[in-house]
C-alpha cells in the first residue's frame, strides 16, 4: 500500500506543479513528454495483445484443419510423419513428467533452504549465501542443458544401464536445481514477513526452534509458499533449452523417467530447427502448442497472484 500511496501523491504534486505553469510553450513540451511516457507504458499492453493475436490467428488456422477434440484428447502426436496424428497429450505428458520431477527436487530443497536462510542463518551468512543462489538462478539454461546431457546422463547410465541417451530424469534433476533458487527466494520472503511476535509467543510457550519453524512460521507463511510453488511449476512447464537438449524428441505416453520423451517446448524447438514452410500444417502446430503452453502458464501465474492477494495473513 505504501507504494500506491507515494505513486498517487507524486502524481498529484506533478499535476499541481503543471497547472501552476504560466508559459504555454513550456506546458506544451511537458504535455508532449507526458504523452511519450504514456506511450512507452502502453507497449506492455501491446505486447500482450500481440502475443494473443499471433497465437490466436495461427491456432484458428490449425483448428480449421484439425478437430479440437482430436487435439485435446488424442494420444498420438506425429505431425512430422507421413501418417499425421495430432493428439497433444503425449507432449503434455512429457511436459508434466519433467516438471513434476523438477518440483520433487526444487520444492523440498528450496523450502529447507528458505527455512535455513530465514530462521537459522546469521545476517552475515545470509549476505554470502543469497548472491550465490542468485548466480545459480542466473546461469543460462543452455548451460544447464549441456550439464544434463553430458554430466548427469552418464552418471544415471552407470546406475541404471537401461537409461536412454536422452531421458526425462536428467532434465528433471537439473531443472530442479535451476528453479531451486526461485522457490527458496520467494519462500524466504514469505517466511521473513511472519512477525517476530508470533515466534516469541511460541518460544514463551516452551517450543523448540524446530517447533517454532515448522508449526508456527511455515503455516503462517503458507500462502506465500503456495505462490512460490505455482510460479515454479509455471517456470518448469515453460523451460525450453534443458529439455530440448537432454530429454529427447519422442512424444509418448509414459511415466518412466529413464525413457526419451518430448515436451511442448522441445517440440516447438524441433520444428523451428527444420525449414518449415510458412503456411504448412506443421507451421501452425507450433502456435497451437504454444497457445496451450501460454494458457497453462497464465493460469498458474494468475492463481499464484490471487493466492498472494487473497490469502495473505494480515497481522496487527
Amino acid at each position, binding site marked *: 500500500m505504501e507504494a500506491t500511496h507515494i505513486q498517487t501523491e507524486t502524481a498529484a504534486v506533478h499535476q499541481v506543479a503543471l497547472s501552476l505553469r504560466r508559459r504555454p510553450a513550456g506546458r506544451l513540451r511537458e504535455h508532449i513528454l507526458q504523452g511519450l511516457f504514456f506511450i512507452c507504458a502502453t507497449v506492455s499492453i501491446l505486447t500482450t495483445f500481440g502475443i494473443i493475436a499471433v497465437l490466436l490467428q495461427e491456432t484458428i488456422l490449425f483448428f480449421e484443419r484439425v478437430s479440437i477434440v482430436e487435439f485435446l484428447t488424442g494420444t498420438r502426436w506425429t505431425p512430422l510423419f507421413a501418417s499425421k496424428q495430432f493428439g497433444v497429450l503425449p507432449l503434455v505428458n512429457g511436459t508434466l513428467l519433467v516438471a513434476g520431477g523438477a518440483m520433487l527436487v526444487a520444492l523440498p530443497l528450496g523450502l529447507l533452504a528458505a527455512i535455513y536462510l530465514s530462521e537459522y542463518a546469521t545476517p552475515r551468512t545470509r549476505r554470502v549465501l543469497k548472491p550465490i543462489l542468485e548466480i545459480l538462478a*542466473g546461469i543460462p539454461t543452455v548451460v544447464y542443458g549441456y550439464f544434463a546431457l553430458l554430466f548427469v546422463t552418464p552418471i544415471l547410465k552407470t546406475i541404471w544401464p537401461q537409461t536412454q541417451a536422452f531421458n526425462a530424469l536428467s532434465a528433471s534433476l537439473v531443472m530442479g536445481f535451476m528453479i531451486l533458487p526461485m522457490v527458496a527466494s520467494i519462500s524466504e520472503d514469505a517466511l521473513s514477513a511472519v512477525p517476530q511476535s508470533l515466534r516469541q509467543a511460541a518460544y514463551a510457550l516452551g517450543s523448540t526452534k524446530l517447533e517454532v519453524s515448522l508449526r508456527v512460521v511455515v503455516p503462517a507463511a503458507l500462502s506465500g509458499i503456495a505462490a512460490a510453488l505455482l510460479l515454479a511449476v509455471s517456470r518448469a512447464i515453460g523451460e525450453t533449452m534443458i529439455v530440448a537438449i537432454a530429454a529427447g524428441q519422442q512424444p509418448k505416453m509414459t511415466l518412466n523417467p529413464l525413457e526419451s520423451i518430448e515436451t511442448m517446448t522441445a517440440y516447438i524447438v524441433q520444428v523451428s530447427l527444420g525449414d518449415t514452410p510458412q503456411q504448412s500444417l506443421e507451421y501452425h502446430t507450433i502456435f497451437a502448442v504454444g497457445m496451450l503452453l501460454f494458457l497453462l502458464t497464465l493460469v498458474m501465474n494468475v492463481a499464484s497472484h490471487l493466492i498472494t492477494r487473497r490469502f495473505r495473513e494480515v497481522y496487527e
Partner: protein
Amino acid sequence: MSLTSIHDPAFVRRLERRKRLGRFFELLCLAAVWLGILMLLTLLVDVVLDGLPWLRPELFTEFPSRFPDKAGLRSALQGTIWLIAITATLAVPIGLGAAIYLEEYARQNSLTRFIEINISNLAGVPSIIYGLLGLGLFVRGLDLGRSVLAGGMTMALLVMPTVIVASREAIRAVPLSMRQASFALGATPWQTVRHHVLPYAMPGILTGVILAMSRAIGETAPLITIGALTYVAFDLKGPLDIFTVLPIQIFNWVSLPQKEFHGLAAAGILILLIVLLSMNATAILLRNAYQKKVSW
C-alpha cells in the same frame, strides 16, 4: 491433570529428544543449501575441465566449421554484440519511459492497474512464447526475415518487464521531499524528473539494465524459434543480416555427436559465463556502492 514438573524424568527425556530433532533439522536445512552450492561448483568444474583445452585464440577469430580444429565463435560473438546493442537501444528508453510514467505521472485508476497487472503477467510468460510472437510479428508480419533486427526486437520485448520493474523501484526510492523542493523552486515535472529524480535513481536503474542485458545474452529459446539457428560463415554487416549468437552456437555444438564439438561447446560456455558473471558482479558492486553512499 497435574502440572508436569521440569524435573520429571519423562519430560526431560522428551525435551532431549525434541532438541536432538531440532539439531538434526538444522543440519538438514543447511544440507539443502549446500547441495545447491555443490551443484553449482560441480557444474563450473565440469565446464572448466571440458572447455579449457579448447579455449584458444582461434575460437575468437574463426567462423563455425565442420572441422572442430578450425571452428570458432567469430560470427556468434558479432551476433551477440549486435543483438545486445539493438535490445538495449529499444528496451532501455521504452522501459525507462514506462517506469517514469507509472511512478511520476500515472493516476490511480483502472488503466494504470491494468498496465501494472499486464507487466507482472508478461514477466511470467515463457521465453519461447516471445519467440513465437517475434516469428509471427517481426519475421513474418513486418517481413524482417530471420535478421538480427527481428531478434533484437523480440529480445527487447522479453526483457522490458525486468527494466520497468527495476527502474520503478529505483525511482520510487527517491523521497517525495526531493520533488517537492524542486517544484517549490518553480521547476516543471520534466525538469524535476530530469535533474532530481533520475540522477539519484540512476545506479538502481543501471543495475536493472545490466541484469536485463545479461538475461538477453543468455537466452536461447526465443531466438531459435524465430529461426536464428543458421550456419553463418561471414561477418555481420548490418541489422538485416541473418545471424547467430553465443548460446545458439553452444546449443548447436552440444547437439553434434562428436566429442570435440562438446569441448568447443564447453569453451563457449566458459566465455558466456565469464561475460555474465562480470556483468552480475558489476551490478552487485553498483548496488552496494549506491546503498552506502545515499541515505535519506
